[in-house]
């Protein structure tokens, strides 16, 4: 579990080896490379993930997914956790 600050101003995407299975509560993520499973615990966080590729920044993706401003820090923490386990990566990096 990482506590690193998450760069909301960077461009992010799902790691190419990650598969997404939508669920009522959100989604399951599976990373075929690290063979690790993660749970996306809200449908809105899934919407954020789905918005990442087209968004210039993670902040924009959150806005597009309808994340209310007061909840942005919580979403940044969730994204930081996903970044720490390589489920998402910066678009500049492969």
């Amino acid at each position, binding site marked *: 579990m990482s506590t690193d600050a998450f760069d909301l101003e960077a461009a992010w995407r799902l790691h190419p080896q990650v598969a997404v*299975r939508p*669920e009522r*509560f959100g989604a399951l993520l599976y990373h*075929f490379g690290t063979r690790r499973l993660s749970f996306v615990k*809200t449908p*809105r966080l899934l919407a954020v993930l789905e918005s990442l590729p087209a968004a210039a920044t993670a902040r924009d993706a959150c806005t597009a997914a309808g994340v209310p401003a007061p909840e942005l820090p*919580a979403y940044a923490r*969730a994204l930081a956790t996903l970044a720490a386990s390589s489920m998402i990566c910066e678009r500049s990096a492969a």
Partner: protein
Amino acid sequence: MSPTAVLPLVQEFELGLDAPICLTWELTYACNLACVHCLSSSGRRDPRELTTAQCEAVIDELERMQVFYVNVGGGEPTIRPDFWHLLDYAVAHRVGVKFSTNGSRLTPDRARRLAATDYVDVQISLDGATAEVNDYVRGPGSFDTAVGALENLATAGFRDAKISVVCTRHNLDQLDEFLALADRYGATLRLTRLRPSGRGADTWDELHPRPEQQRVLYDWLVTHGDRVLTGDSFFHLSAFGAPLPGLNLCGAGRVVCLIDPVGDVYACPFAIHDRFRAGNLLADGGFAQVWRHSPLFAQLRAPQTGGACASCSFYDSCRGGCMAAKFFTGLPLDGPDPECVQGHGEPALARERTVPAASQDHSRPVAARKQPVLLQLGRPPVSACAENPLADFRPEVPR
């Protein structure tokens, strides 16, 4: 972390998902070992074993259901002549494979080929950090075989193999040695709970951790939890205090299940018994059909009351413990786990109970060449019909 959660994840999972998160698939009951605690009472191949084509159809279905990985076991899965083919087939269909093996077929050549394959995890079973402790339950020579396989994998450059340990009263004081062993081979340690299932029903009394060892294990897991895997199998220990990392609930028929070598679908890997058989994927229209429509699974996904445990203040931590552990020790399913850490297990075990008879047994009738000796230390029970007044008399003999 979850600002607009639908339900807490645990509750979502207790109601069941449209597809399992992962599942265990025992590919064969054939095994070259005869471990005394084998969950599936393996030994002999079942003649009705799924064919290669039938296995491929299962993988196709898992791909459609987005089951991301399967835990493949047995028996010894690598005994199947089509094992390596099925491994490649699964990987090509985006179904990751974690397979458990005793290591007897992981030659240097095979290890090199595995090192070149993505999406495959290898778990080497080892139930002692020393040959003495391991071979006691897994059979003579099995320690050297497992360590040889780890050596081959490490030499071939296969990274992060798993050393899979079933925790017994004999190996729980070796946890640090297991970690050192894992470090030596660049492997990760995986600890799981001993269940009284399969041949384990006959040996559980002698092997399961003592109550004071449970506490030591809990503390060790709290300290080292980030370095070891547990398959989330110790949730009954969470009643000691803070919950352990992972999912603290019984996933049987809700988020996990087991497919056995003949295509029978059971609620979980530790519940190979008619009582927990949801159906057969050949006879009942495929795996998805069984998963989604079996009456047994519907029952397991219905809200549970907690039964005798409902009034216990720790119920939210342990959720009543392991269904299979209760069933195979003859305890009521809505009561405490036999290893309840709040001490409700022992009185339950002391009451009158009937241990259920096994509903399948693929053990070899004749002792294997490398059969462990544990069972031979016990004496056969006296028949209820024995008339000799001394039938039951056992003079004390120094050991």
